[in-house]
């Protein structure tokens, strides 16, 4: 086993592809096993990966450049495109960064609605992820169920915000509207369905001998890797940590909600899956809490100065929120003009899919690369932006 790996010189493995011992294999960009449009360049020996290199940039649109030449209000519709499956974190953080620089405080009801929106989108994203994880190990059945249930959540979004994917709901200064009539009942129905689904997933996925066999011990993240690789979110919570921004530095109204950070021991794919599975329960619980305690009346939005020529005072700030993948952050620099000087998006996938995946994939069976990659929960559009 030892001499399977090529020697490492200067931090790079040195080997000769012509020696016939190694095979170069690309996973992606056109490949169902990678999460989204990115690719992994795998050098394999037998069935073992000896080197993995993540290639990104297939989805690069230059958001940070585009935002430099858009007025603040015009950045609001484009930020959500940075992360497709869970756009709301972007919306919230962009609005929050702007409000921070402007020194604004949004109405209480808007905070509750934003929290609801964020939790709901976390829910949708996690449910889809569960499907992805099972699918990566070949269990298409669970994937189909999960995607169907995610679609029910999207129906909720559609009814509430007027769009399925890009909700564009959290405008700077508040939110765009209240909950429609009868939404609560609809939501409760969907949540019940997902609750039932989670139970089925427990039977089918977590109590599945083959899933256990494949997921346990795969891609272990140890506590000493946390900061070295900048790992955040469920990926560290799967390794026994309780880091959760919602709990540690509460934003919006998370400090008024009753929850504990989910944590599991083991640090492998199985533990991470379990964390996310439990987080769906948590999200359902939080949504129910929000719906129960939310103020139903009150202003939703503070009218900003005329958005067509809104100037933000010079300064810089950083705001963060817990997305499904972990710490999501916006670093905004304003030079006092109508256009942001710089908006940098700190997506958790950045470190997870690049530095961490390249590290974890070495030594893994080729068949497990897809499962490993999914378990890190990466979305390419937020890597290259």
């Amino acid at each position, binding site marked *: 086993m030892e001499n399977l790996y090529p020697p490492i010189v*200067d*931090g*790079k493995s040195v080997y000769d592809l012509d020696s016939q011992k190694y095979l170069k294999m690309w996973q992606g960009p056109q490949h169902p096993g990678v999460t989204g449009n990115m690719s992994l360049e795998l050098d394999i020996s037998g069935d073992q990966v000896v080197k993995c290199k993540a290639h*990104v*940039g297939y989805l*690069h649109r*230059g958001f*940070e*450049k*585009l935002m*430099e*030449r858009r007025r603040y209000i015009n950045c609001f519709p484009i930020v959500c495109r940075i992360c497709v499956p869970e756009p709301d974190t972007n919306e919230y953080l962009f609005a929050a960064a702007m409000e921070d620089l402007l020194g604004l405080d949004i109405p209480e009801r808007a905070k509750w609605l934003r929290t609801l929106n964020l939790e709901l989108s976390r829910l949708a994203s996690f449910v889809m992820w569960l499907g992805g994880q099972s699918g990566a190990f070949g269990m298409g059945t669970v994937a189909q169920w999960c995607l169907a249930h995610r679609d029910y959540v999207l129906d909720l979004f559609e009814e509430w915000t007027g769009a399925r994917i890009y909700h564009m709901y959290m405008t700077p200064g508040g939110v765009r509207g209240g909950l429609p009539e009868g939404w609560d009942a609809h939501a409760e129905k969907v949540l019940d369905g997902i609750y039932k689904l989670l139970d089925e997933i427990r039977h089918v996925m977590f109590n599945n001998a083959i899933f256990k066999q494949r997921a346990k011990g795969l891609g272990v993240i140890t506590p000493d890797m946390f*900061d*070295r*690789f*900048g790992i*955040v979110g469920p990926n560290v919570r799967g390794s026994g940590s309780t*880091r959760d921004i919602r709990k*540690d*530095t509460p934003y919006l109204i998370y400090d008024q909600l009753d929850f504990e950070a989910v944590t599991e021991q083991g640090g492998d794919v199985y533990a991470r899956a379990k964390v996310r599975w439990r987080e769906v329960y948590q999200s359902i619980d939080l949504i129910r809490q929000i719906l129960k305690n939310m103020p139903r009346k009150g202003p939703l939005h503070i009218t900003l100065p005329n958005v067509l020529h809104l100037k933000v005072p010079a*300064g*810089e*700030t*950083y705001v*963060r929120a817990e997305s499904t993948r972990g*710490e999501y*952050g916006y*670093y905004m*620099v304003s030079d006092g003009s109508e256009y942001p*000087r*710089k908006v*940098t998006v*700190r997506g958790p996938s*950045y*470190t997870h899919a*690049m*530095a*961490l995946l390249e*590290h974890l994939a070495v030594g893994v069976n080729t068949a497990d690369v897809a499962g490993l990659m999914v378990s890190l929960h990466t979305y390419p559009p937020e890597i*290259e932006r």
Partner: protein
Amino acid sequence: MQELLDNLKELYALNGITLRNPSLAWAEVTPERLVGLLTQLRDAHGFTHLVLMTCVDWLEDGRFQVTYLLHNYTTRQDLGLHVYVGRTASELPSIHTLWEQGRVYQQELHEMFGIYFPGSPGLGEPMILESWDGPPPMRRDFDTRVYSEETYSHRQRTHHEPEQHMKDRLYPED
């Protein structure tokens, strides 16, 4: 936070210390003392998490501001370090030995701004851009709209500005 920065101020010649809020501060450090400061912050003061590394192009001042944002998980504080570097032949010390993801950030900054980080692995390889022959695109003197209009074909617009249009229609001679 203030206390910590006061302590470090002497040693690392910190400038422009601003406390945005009790848990977020910005400070300026010279490139020479950057790695030392980062190491000390990481190892001695609990700022173990490199949140992000990015660059702001101050074209008017002719310099880049590279921001290193660190997070302390115990005190829940953020400390952003600014390093200023000229816009031509910019070079900064590499921090890939401190944090693994530093390599990726540096690779991106090299590609997007043209900042050179000696020793950072894979720096020259294209990461996001492929077959790019223009200037590093995130520099402010690169105009993406002009580039886009020159390079790609767009549908023709037929826009009329209301004010001009009304002038043309209602009082053309005036």
